[in-house]
């Protein structure tokens, strides 16, 4: 997903010389092609995320659109106040790309688990928050974020994420994508964990449970109408995300349902405190949360 996204960025930046890419000394085997193709639009600022965000703000205040690249929590939490004050307070066109979102760097330990980013980024003014499920969503979302000319956060996985959509599927930040329609439970997912939601729907069908599956490429803005539709037309709603169960998609879906006076049976599948301190591959860690289909079935 990261390579496809940077290739898309390179193409977009080639046509838009106001775009600059900054990295805080990460991107080995990913950013080289951009750096070689567009050296005037690229800078490795060193291992200094706070300064990187400030530098980005200075560039943006001087006419550039700036893309920041780093991994996990480094371009978000490490420099949160710079994002808040320098970028968001000034409503600047700065797009933060974090790779290794969620538990992609699972074996590297909790420092590298990006599992609070979506909620924290979505709390910042002007900030759009995108969490693509596959390379197709990622490359479709990137230009949309750049063209907003406002703060944006793009959370990517790592590499090798399977393609879940066909290439003709329209992807927009503002709209959920229904991949499967059922009647009993709506599973609302964001990010590559969508693959587990689709597999769970198959498993539920074998148990005689009819499930819908939707992908939410955007956490903010959230497709609230899709959430309301899910709540109106299903007995249960389960949110699925590779993120803390607090503050992310589940929280935003819950508040949308509540505001609409809808009260389906509701559950959140996501990272809990039980995972903190555990190490292992992404799939091993997610397995610790139990099968998605069991969470869905338990709601019915």
């Amino acid at each position, binding site marked *: 997903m990261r390579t496809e996204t940077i290739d898309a960025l390179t193409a977009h930046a080639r046509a838009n010389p106001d775009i600059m890419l900054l990295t805080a000394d990460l991107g080995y085997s990913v950013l080289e092609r951009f750096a070689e193709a567009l050296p005037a639009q690229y800078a490795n600022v060193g291992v200094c995320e706070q*300064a990187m965000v400030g530098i980005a703000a200075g560039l943006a205040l001087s006419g550039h659109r700036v893309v920041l690249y780093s991994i996990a929590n480094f371009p978000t939490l490490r420099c949160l106040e710079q994002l808040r004050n*320098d970028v968001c307070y000034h409503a600047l066109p700065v797009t933060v790309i974090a790779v290794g979102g969620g538990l992609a760097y699972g074996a590297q330990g909790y420092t590298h688990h990006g599992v609070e980013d979506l909620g924290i980024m979505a709390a910042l003014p002007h900030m759009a928050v995108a969490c693509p499920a596959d390379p197709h969503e990622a490359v479709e979302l990137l230009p949309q974020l750049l063209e907003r000319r406002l703060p944006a956060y793009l959370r990517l996985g790592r590499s090798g994420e399977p393609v879940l959509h066909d290439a003709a599927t329209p992807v927009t930040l503002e709209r959920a994508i229904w991949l499967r329609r059922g009647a009993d439970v709506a599973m609302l997912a964001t990010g590559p964990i969508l693959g587990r939601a689709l597999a769970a729907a198959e498993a539920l069908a074998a148990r005689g449970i009819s499930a819908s599956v939707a992908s939410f490429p955007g956490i903010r803005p959230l497709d609230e109408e899709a959430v309301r539709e899910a709540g109106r037309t299903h007995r249960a709603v389960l949110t699925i995300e590779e993120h803390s169960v607090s503050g992310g998609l589940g929280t935003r879906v819950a508040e949308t349902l509540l505001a609409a006076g809808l009260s389906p049976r509701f559950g959140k599948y996501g990272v809990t405190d039980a995972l903190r301190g555990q190490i292992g591959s992404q799939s091993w860690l997610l397995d610790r949360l139990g099968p998605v289909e069991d969470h869905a079935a338990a709601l019915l």
Partner: protein
Amino acid sequence: MTPNRIDTRALARRLRAHAIRMTHLARASHVGSCLSMADIMAVLHGAVLKLDPTRPDWPERDRLVVSKGHAAAIVYAALAELGFLPVAELDTYSADGGRLSGHVTRTVPGVELSTGSLGHGLPVAAGMALAAQRYGAAWRSFCIVSDGELDEGSNWEAIQFAQQFRLENLVLVVDYNKIQSFGRVSEVSELHPLPEKFRAFNWGVHELDGHDHDALLAALSGPPPLPGRPTAIVAHTVKGKGVSFMEDQLAWHYRSADAAQLAAALAEVEAGR
């Protein structure tokens, strides 16, 4: 637009008077921080910065980022003296519903960056300098930091970055008044030897009396002391400078003048001691 060579010493007196009056009216803190940098602001705005008050967003203007955003009163005063906003508006400093907030805000014409949390200005000023370098533009990027603010690690990230990227168009002024918010710099987090620190980071350095207009003008408008590298001006200053009972006093980081103190302070400033 080349700056008019106005009398910077007279301008400094007016800036001091504005800041004292504004903080008095608003019962606001930080007057000592304002007076400390009054001469730096006067020389910058009176004789150095290329600005156009009729076009605050003029692309070729010099940039000034005041990272010590708590010294907002004197920033607004300088901009008002240049014509970016009405001088009468200064009386609305920190007032309900006004636009002159207690930490500098970009919604005020002429302010380049909203600041207030320390350690934010220099990275942004460095980004502005990088933009000018990439554009091949002639404008320069200036940043004023307090001494206590240099405790923030983000500054040193930017100091390191600026030398690596050869940001010759970046000028940092340290308002080195030796008092930070809860004590003397020497007692809280010693910066001495500060010029040597910058030299060790491959910056060119001027060390001067931050109340000496001739020295400030020469340093701010002359060639960089280390060609191809950013410049740090370590400006030795006195907190509260210009008002005897405010000078070198931590308390005037927080207090504002009462009516009697206002009259006494303004008289001292007018006398130009």
